[in-house]
Structures are given as structure tokens and as C-alpha cells.
């Protein structure tokens, strides 16, 4: 069986404009989403606060649960249905961090008993103090930044044999980030700055594959974060794990294409032949790109529908990431490398 014919020849680079517009729409939508919701919707892992998952043996109206908790004096209290309807489960969240470690679960249980006459089963309690949340936020940003940087070193080294150049560049960037982070520079600003500087350096130093990969990865992560905030979904630790996996996965696709470009480019010195070569490489690897995305999506959909509510958002982030990552390796990474390679001088 064959989904993609072996003689397929789609002019992907000729459709660059469509890709550019599509990406631009997604990025603008993400920016709007982030602005409207005032940044990503941090879950308690990052914002600090508490989350309690309760389960009832019988049906209790959500309003009744809410009312019974009203007297507890908790900030930003929210009660949501959780899981299937016949599970009678609710997720109670609060932004109050002064409750960390104190008997909040007991107080909630007692208040619900008083309000509804039923003792809920406390299935899960998560409480994160504000300073822990801030640290996790910083660490998560650093983790994303470091994995981007390490991967770009690898790409420059493998595809352009510029191990030392890219290593020194990345080392300098990491040192700068480290020292600035000691001086309490705001981490999001710092990482954004470092990424911009990285892109500039890659451009100046002609590390074109590294630049293509980095732009594609920033594109993927940013859009995934954007879609999460448009849908107002919580950002938690597992979502960071998903983002890092997306970085690894999306690059996987990109590398397969780059690898083929490298193979085809051998003995080809004329710059005018480059677009054709790039197109050929993308087409040759298209079947594999699609197939792997399909198998990965199959398991992710299984996880999304059957894995339960705790892992739901993680699976969702991965699904977006796989779709965007597959798209970006064809429509973002390769055109960028081509543009950098075709640059005069």
C-alpha cells in the first residue's frame, strides 16, 4: 500500500507564500490570544495555589458544591466538572497560596459535608507555594531554551561540520543567560532576548541549518502556547514536558528533510539549482514524514480519548505540536535554510 506516490512532485517552495500567510495567521492569532488572556493561563504549578479533585458517590449539582465552599474565604475559587458525567467528580481550584500545607483538603471536605450532606472522596490534592511556582516557571523557560540551544549545536555540527563555531556561540549564550539570571533579570525577557541574539548570530555566522531549525522550533512552540491560551487551557508541568517533546519531535522531521537535502546537494555548486533540490528532497521524504505523523497521531488520539482527564491536556498539546511540527518542517525550516543559502556573498 502506498499513500504517497513515489513519483510525487509537489512544488512546496513555490507555495511558500501560502505557508507564510498560514503561519502568520496562526502567530497573530496566538499573539492576540496571549494579549487577551494576559499571558499564558498558568496552572497552579506555576502560579501557586491549590487544586483538589473530589468524587461523590451520587450526583451532586455543581452549584451546591460551589455554594458550600463560598464560606471558606478562598481567592479565585473555581469548581469544574471533571471526567465523565457519571463519575460525579469535580476539580476545585484556588489561587490562595497561604493554604499551602495547611489542612485545606480537610476544610474543603468539611465544608462540602456541611453544604451537601455528603462526604466527598478526596482523590487528589496539589498545593504549590508561590515561590515554588516562580522557580518552576524559571526552570521551565530555561529548559526550553537549553534544549533549543543544544539541538541547534547538534544540527550545525552534523550538517555543516561547524561543531566548534556553533558550540562556542551556544556556550557564550548560555554563559550570558546564566549571569544575567543571577542578576534577577525577568526570565521571559531574558530568554526572548537570548533567542533573538541566537538567531542574529546564526545569521551572521552563516549557520543556516541551525537558523532554519531554530526558527521552525520557535514557530512550533509559540503556536502551541498560543493555541493553549486561545482555548484558555491550563499550563502545567506536563505541558512543558509536551513542549520539549514537540521540540524534539518537530526537529526529527526537519532533520530527515535536511538530511536528504545534504545528500542531494553533494556535487551541486550552482545556487540556482538549490530551490529544485530542496523541493526534490522534501518530496522524497514526504511519504515518511506523513506516515510517522500518522502513527504518532494514532497513539496520541488513543491517549487523548482513553487516557483520562489528568493526561488530557498533555495529549492535546502533543497533537497540536505534531501537526504544527510536521507542517513547519516543510513550510518553515526548509524555506529559511534556502533563503539563507541563497544569500549573496
Amino acid at each position, binding site marked *: *500500500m502506498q*499513500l504517497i506516490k*513515489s513519483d510525487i512532485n509537489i512544488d512546496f517552495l513555490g507555495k511558500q507564500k501560502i505557508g507564510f500567510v498560514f503561519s502568520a495567521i496562526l502567530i497573530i492569532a496566538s499573539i492576540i490570544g496571549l494579549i487577551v488572556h494576559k499571558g499564558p493561563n498558568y496552572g497552579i504549578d506555576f502560579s501557586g495555589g491549590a487544586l483538589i479533585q473530589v468524587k461523590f458517590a451520587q450526583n451532586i449539582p455543581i452549584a451546591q458544591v460551589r455554594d458550600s465552599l463560598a464560606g471558606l474565604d478562598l481567592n479565585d475559587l473555581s469548581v469544574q466538572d471533571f471526567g465523565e458525567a457519571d463519575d460525579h467528580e469535580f476539580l476545585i481550584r484556588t489561587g490562595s497560596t497561604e493554604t*499551602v*500545607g*495547611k*489542612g485545606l*483538603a480537610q476544610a474543603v471536605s468539611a465544608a462540602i459535608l456541611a453544604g451537601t450532606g455528603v462526604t466527598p*472522596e*478526596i*482523590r*487528589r*490534592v*496539589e*498545593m*504549590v*507555594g508561590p*515561590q*515554588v511556582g516562580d522557580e518552576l516557571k524559571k526552570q521551565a523557560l530555561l*529548559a526550553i531554551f*537549553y*534544549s533549543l540551544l*543544544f*539541538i541547534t549545536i*547538534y*544540527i550545525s555540527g*552534523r550538517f555543516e561540520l561547524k561543531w566548534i563555531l556553533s558550540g562556542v556561540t551556544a556556550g557564550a549564550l548560555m554563559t550570558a543567560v546564566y549571569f544575567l539570571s543571577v542578576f534577577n533579570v525577568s526570565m521571559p525577557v531574558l530568554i526572548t532576548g537570548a533567542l533573538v541574539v541566537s538567531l542574529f548570530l546564526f545569521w551572521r555566522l552563516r549557520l543556516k541549518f541551525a537558523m532554519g531549525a531554530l526558527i521552525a522550533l520557535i514557530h512550533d512552540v509559540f503556536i502551541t502556547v498560543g493555541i493553549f491560551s486561545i482555548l484558555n487551557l491550563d499550563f502545567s*508541568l*506536563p505541558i*512543558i*514536558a509536551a513542549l*520539549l*517533546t514537540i*521540540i*524534539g*519531535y518537530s526537529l*526529527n522531521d526537519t*532533520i*530527515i528533510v535536511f*538530511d*536528504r537535502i545534504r*545528500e542531494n546537494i553533494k556535487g551541486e555548486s550552482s545556487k540556482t539549482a538549490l530551490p529544485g533540490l530542496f523541493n526534490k528532497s522534501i518530496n*522524497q521524504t514526504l511519504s*515518511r514524514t506523513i*506516515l*510517522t505523523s500518522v*502513527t*504518532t497521531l*494514532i*497513539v*496520541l488520539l*488513543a*491517549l487523548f480519548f*482513553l*487516557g*483520562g482527564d*489528568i*493526561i488530557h491536556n*498533555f495529549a492535546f498539546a*502533543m497533537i497540536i505540536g505534531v501537526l504544527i511540527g510536521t507542517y513547519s518542517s516543510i513550510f518553515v525550516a526548509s524555506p529559511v535554510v534556502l533563503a539563507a543559502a541563497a544569500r549573496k556573498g
Partner: protein
Amino acid sequence: MKPFTFTRIVILGVLITAVVFLLPTFTNTWPHKKINLGLDLQGGMHLVLEVQNVKAVEAELERTVDELKKELRKDSITHLGIARQEDNTILAQLPDKEAKNAFEKIISKEFSNLKVTASSAGGDATKFQLRLPDDEKEMIQKMATEQALETIRNRIDEFGVSEPDIRIQGENRILLQLPGINDPERAKDLIGKTAQLTFQLVNEDVSPEAALQGSLPVGSQILYENKTDPVTGNTAKIAHVIKKQVLLDGSLLVDARVEFDQFQQPQVGIEFNRKGAHIFDRITGQNIKKRLAIVLDNTVYSAPVIQDRIAGGKAVITGNFTMEEAKDLAIALRAGSLPAPVNIIEERTVGPTLGADSIRMGMISMLAGGALVLLFMAVYYKGAGLVANLALVMNIILIGGGLAAFQATLTLPGIAGIILTIGMAVDANVIIFERIREEIGWGKTPLAAVHAGFDRATLTILDANVTTLIAAIVLFQFGTGPVKGFAVTLGLGIVASLFTALVLSKSIFDFILQKKTASTLSI
């Protein structure tokens, strides 16, 4: 042709090793350990405590102040006040030259560890600022964290938790992983209790009411007692004026256990060691008809009038305890007090039923996703698809064996990582198969195409997997608990899929192609 080539022996060896490591998880009988389940799967509590070890420094400074005063009193040197300041220095004021010189002599003789700066305070008076050197401060803080860890470990051991994991994290944090806790609130109470037991005299010169109005004598403080009315059940806070001087503390205890009074009400009986018993004997003898307060963590538990000298070093703590409270207090006193108070800054508790649900749903999605991928590969690549499927099954066995062998922890995101690996592991085979198809399309014989396919694809596969491996390693470094579990299975999955695609699949193809002089290949 030899049935046992080197590659085949390696494959067999790896498979058997993985199965040996994996078996105990299912049979309970094999020599090695089971796969560790994370707290999110087996239920339990994850706590991060912050030791307020600055308080240990404060306590050390308070002790120094007391000793200094004692020394000055011994030599009859007058001073205008010695006290610990907010910035953790000691300020001492001496009225004249003579006192100043005597003070300096004492400092250089008895307190040479302190850093001293002197300045004039007008007239003949001198101000001294005494400071602990930074390395000593750090030492005290470090010791406080380590001692807190030991104390908490003792309490947990007595409380009875199977396989707790307690470790220091960073400078002043303690990470606790307590599987299978039934009563998280009670465990938290026990762990977080400072259990600082002191015996202090009640200042009977002034009534609590007057002291609350503002006439609190120097050297005394107001502490409260929680009293429950036995009839109405209401609790009231009763103020006591307590002298700050500590006559005896819990560090000299040898035993603490639950006892019952004549109304069968639980109380905690404590017993001092010889030195403690001697001190107790002396202070009770010296203070007959005065009230002695038993203070635990700045709360007065009782303040009985001393009727007679008490020899033997035994006392009881009463305070309307429930049986559990009395038991936990006894554990805390036996295990010793924390050198500084601790705060819980992170807590994650998962009930056992939720953990079981998570395992069940994780398994269902793994089976469903796995079955679909197996089906897809078989349909799409026919014979070659079956080879890929065999590699996939081996892959899962290897991940499981790896988890058991490294005693890594399987968490819910970890299961997600395995599921993801199922989807991504076939990638290596897909890359190879697509290449083989291409090579066949260019007119090569199946054997030549397979060889070319593997040759060309090997480097590509390595390159493509290294990036995901980098992400997994960074994630392992950054993550805690569940997320770390994801990084582990993702990383294991990548390594396993490299092995199954590049070694196992290739070996199977070689076997098929050598057996028959194949002119066609099912791919």
C-alpha cells in the same frame, strides 16, 4: 549458514535480560525488584518542606546572648543591654571604659568566634556589634537542614510508611515521597511539628490581664493555652505570662509514650535522662509552690503548681489529646525536635483509587494505540510491516526491562511517554522501509535495496533521534516526579527503538533474504 551469528546472540541476550528484569513486576517471584510506580500511580504524598534555618541562627544568637549575660553577671560587670538585633547581630552597650575593657576580655577569651566592631555611643559608653562569621552561619544552617532531615526520617519510620524517600533538595529544602499514606493531614501534622518542648516558670508577679494591657515585665512573654470546656466542647485561648528563661528542654528526653489519666484520657508521659532528671529535681526543689509551665512549640499545655520536689525525672503532658494526637506527640518527642521550624511549600497527594484509575486508563490507551499502530503497519507494509511490529513489541519489552533494571519510576506521564514511543518508534522502520522502496523503485534487487536502505537510513535515524534524546535529557534534568518519569520512558524508548530498528529489523531482513533467493520483497 550459521544459525547463531554474533548479532543474533546479542539480540537474544538483550531480550532475555529485559524479560528477566521485567518478570518480577508480573510474577512477584523473580530475584530482581519490580518496576517502581510513581506516587501518581500508587497513591501517596509528595511534600517539599522548607527548613527555616535562619531561625536556627537566631536561636544560636539568643543562646550566645544568654551566655554573655551570664558571664558578665559572674564578673559583676554592668551593661546597658545586650540583645539580638533584627539583622542577626548582637548589640551590646557598656556604660564606661572599665566595663568595656572587661567585656573585651571576656569576648576574646570565651567568644573568640564572634566578629566584633566597637563604636562610641556618646560619653564613655561604648556600643559593640557582634556578628557570627558567614561560614559559621552557613554551617549552622546546613546542620539545621541535615538535622531536620534526620529527625523527620525518624518520625516517618516510627509512623510506619513503607519505602519512604526523604532527601535534601537544594540548600534548605527537604523532599519527601511517602507512598500509600492513608491520612495525609495527620502525616503532615506529625512531620511539620517542631516539637520544641520546654519547661519555663510562670511569672506570677503580674496578671495576664495586666500584661496584655502593656505592663509586660522584661524577660517574660505571653503564651497561650488552648483549653477545651469538657461540657460545651468550646475551645478558649488562655493567656499566661511566662518567664523567657528555659529551665529544661526536650533535648534531654529519653522516652515519651502514651499514658492514661484516671479518666482514661490519653496523655503523654515523658522521661528524662540522668542529667535531665537531675535538673528537673533541682528546679522543682527550688520552686515549690510556684507554677511551672510545660510549653510545646510556644503553646502552654499545662502550668501546674509544684507541690514538691520531683525526683526520678518523669513528667506528663496533658492537654485533651485524642488517642492519635497523643501517639503522634509521643513519636515527635521521641524522635527529637526540629532544629528550626519547617514550612510545607509544595504538596501533591494522590488517593489510591485515582492511582488505580490512572493505571487502568493508561493501559487501555496503550493497548488501543498499540493495536492500531500494529494494524496500520501490517496493512501498509505487509511483510515488512510485520517485521516492524515485531520490533515494536520488543521495544516495549525493552522499555519495561529498562525501567526495572535502572529502578526508574513509572509515572502517568511516563506511561504517556511509552505510548508516544509506540507511535514514534515505528518511525525508524518507516525511514528504512521508505528508503528500501525508493531503492527498489530505482531498479535495485531486493537484497541490494535492503542493504542500501539500511546503510543510507542509519545515519538519518541516528540524527533524527539524537534531537529527541537531547530534549529528553534536558527534561530529565529539569523535571521532578511525574515529568521526570516521562523523560525516562521517552529516553529509554528512543534508545530501544534505535536498537530494534538498526539491529533487530536488519537481522530479520538478513534472515529472510538469505533463506530464499528472493526476487520479490513484501514491503
